């Protein structure tokens, strides 16, 4: 894929080459995933190439992306593809395996990644931490310069704002967190919830994990097979194992009951649960039945203050939350565009700054020449005032042109973010002030 030759809009000069879960299956992604020293080595190798000025690597289980600030676009692109991907998986050359984005598009992509728009689970929050870790590594290795550093800062702001100002990360989208979410909608705090888990298989463990993480005050596990229960306890040492036959007395004391056994018949009947509810007259009970066939008699759902949920209702909840997250995408995109505009303004200022400095230097040179020519004609005690006056004149005359050349720094979204007129404007300024002559002469 040949690189685009020019960057007419004076966009931030960037190249992104990457692959993610949409382009490559896990078997391929795991081969191009970079961990610890591998990431360091790659960044060092990339920086060793003369066409690359700055580099940033983002490698997670769902994506491997390398962002380059090129000196030479062709060479930088080739090096990024070769060193990051082809060296490990030559088949990455196949069409559709890699995506390449440039300049503003590359920046927009990273901001989207940080905001969770590009994640497999829309809005997942871990990616922001992974970007921060990768940024720290690039900083340590010396791979990030001003452009990449500022881009990462914009990505961090976009990611944080998206999660604070929108509901892109709200609502549980996995089974375990859906149980946590339901508990939080019933009980005043998970730390007051005693949890009883019936079964000790993979589903039981996936549900127990977020409950433990979010601070459930007690976890009891009842399973027919003691061996499996012990395995469960190895993973969750805080869990208390109880004999399966004692499950009914445990239900009376629990706030949350999760059932996920392979039993063919219900292990909790309506009658048993009604009896249990009598022992807890006013406090509610959440029962999540994840068994297929069902572990809890469906009629138990009619008991007052008992909230019975099955795999189906949990799936409904997850789908609802995903739908809600999707509804937030346009608002997140607005945030991304706002931060991208800020990044572009910063970048344009970066381009304009040498021009402003040159004009100021030229003006100062003229001022010094002119004042040197006339200074002797004035009394010595007026010299400091003359110098101050001429400096002030020059500063005031150049103030407005300098501001215009820099663009309206810091005024969010007020300047043309495309920067389409920037190159011609800078060219005109150079001509007006004869800066190129100055350079040559």
């Amino acid at each position, binding site marked *: 894929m040949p690189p685009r030759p020019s960057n007419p809009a004076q966009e931030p000069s960037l190249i992104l080459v990457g692959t993610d879960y949409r382009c490559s299956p896990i078997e391929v992604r795991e081969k191009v995933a970079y961990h610890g020293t591998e990431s360091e080595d790659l960044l060092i190798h990339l920086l060793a190439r003369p066409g690359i000025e700055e580099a940033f690597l983002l490698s997670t289980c769902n994506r491997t992306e390398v962002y380059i600030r090129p000196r030479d676009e062709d060479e930088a692109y080739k090096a990024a593809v070769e060193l990051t991907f082809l060296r490990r998986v030559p088949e990455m050359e196949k069409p559709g395996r890699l995506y390449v984005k440039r300049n503003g598009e590359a920046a927009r992509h990273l901001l989207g990644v940080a905001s969770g728009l590009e994640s497999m689970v829309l809005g997942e929050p871990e990616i922001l931490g992974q970007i921060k870790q990768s940024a720290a590594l690039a900083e340590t290795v010396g791979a990030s310069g001003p452009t990449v550093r500022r881009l990462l800062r914009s990505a961090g702001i976009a990611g944080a704002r998206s999660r604070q*100002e929108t509901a892109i990360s709200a609502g549980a989208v996995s089974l375990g967190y859906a149980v946590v979410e339901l508990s939080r909608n*019933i009980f*005043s705090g998970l730390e007051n919830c005693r949890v009883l888990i019936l079964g000790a298989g993979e589903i039981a463990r996936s549900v127990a994990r977020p409950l433990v993480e979010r601070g459930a005050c007690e976890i009891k596990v009842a399973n027919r097979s003691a061996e499996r229960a012990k395995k469960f306890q190895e993973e969750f040492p805080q869990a208390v194992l109880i004999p399966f036959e004692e499950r009914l007395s445990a239900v009376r004391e629990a706030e949350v009951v999760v059932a996920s056994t392979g039993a063919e018949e219900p292990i909790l009947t309506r009658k048993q649960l009604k009896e249990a509810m009598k022992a807890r007259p006013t406090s509610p009970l959440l029962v999540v039945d994840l068994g297929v066939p069902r572990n809890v008699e469906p009629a138990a759902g009619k008991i*007052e203050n008992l*909230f019975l949920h099955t795999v189906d209702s949990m799936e409904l*909840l997850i789908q*609802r939350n995903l739908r809600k997250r999707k509804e937030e995408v346009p608002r997140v995109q607005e945030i991304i565009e706002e931060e991208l505009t800020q990044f572009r303004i910063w970048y344009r200022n970066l381009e304009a700054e040498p021009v402003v400095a040159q004009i100021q230097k030229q003006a100062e040179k003229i001022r010094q020449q002119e004042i040197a020519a006339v200074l002797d004609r004035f009394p010595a005690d007026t010299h400091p005032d003359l110098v101050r006056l001429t400096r002030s004149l020059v500063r005031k005359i150049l103030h407005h042109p300098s501001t215009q050349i820099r663009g309206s720094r810091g005024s969010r979204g007020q300047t043309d973010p495309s920067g389409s007129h920037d190159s011609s404007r800078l060219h005109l300024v150079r001509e007006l002030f004869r800066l190129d002559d100055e350079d040559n002469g």
Partner: protein
Amino acid sequence: MTILLDVANILLPLFYLGAAISYGFVFFASHPVANRVTMPALRATVVLHLAMLVALAVHHGQFPAATVSQALSIVAFAVAVVYVFVEWHGRERSTGFWMVSLVFFFQLLASLFSRPNPPDREIFHDPFFGLHVSLALLGYAAFVVAAGYAFLFLQLYRDLKTGRFSMFYGKLPPLEVLERMMIGALSVGFITLTGAVISGAVWAERLYEGAWMHDPKILVTFATWALYAVALTLRRLRRWKGRQTALASLAGLGAILFSLMAVNFFFTDFHGFL
């Protein structure tokens, strides 16, 4: 002064409506601007409301509960103050739309039924009047707050029970918290209404010597008091759970509105002030 009071009478429901709409943006759209302006807007409206009640008291030289309109306005004010406190204390504004909508509803009724010249009866200057009416209105305000939480409790209860997850799910405090707030408001309301009933009975006996007991207003108030007494007793005995108590709370609000509006307008002269 009269013109100012008339203007305030028109502006108050509009301001409460504005605050309710702003809370609606917070509840339905989590709008960042609405998030910032809701509380200051509501606080400013509550201050205006307080100023209007004080001006009414000064202007007419009596406690501003001489008419149904004034009583409804005090209930609206008390509910707004309770909500401002709850939001400030609990940093919880998800119930704001519903509570401020109730405030708007009560203030709208108050403004619609307001009369330029409230009656000036001798009893309005009796200190017992102030005590009796203050207790009754505080009780009513607490029951309105309880009904607000009861309504929200029932919505969330239904969502969690049926697994259909409506717009209420995920936006409200947990069921246990809603229940606790509802029971708390019911308890405060019951204590103050009991105080109002006792003080009213003592006062009326002194003034009317038994002729007051068959008045429709008194009978409806006793019935309302009894409804809340039964609900709280059954709850205390753990016979009733949150859902039944919430339903009773909503029924109680219906009884209060009936007592304040229909009974006062159509069935009683004796208790015409509220």
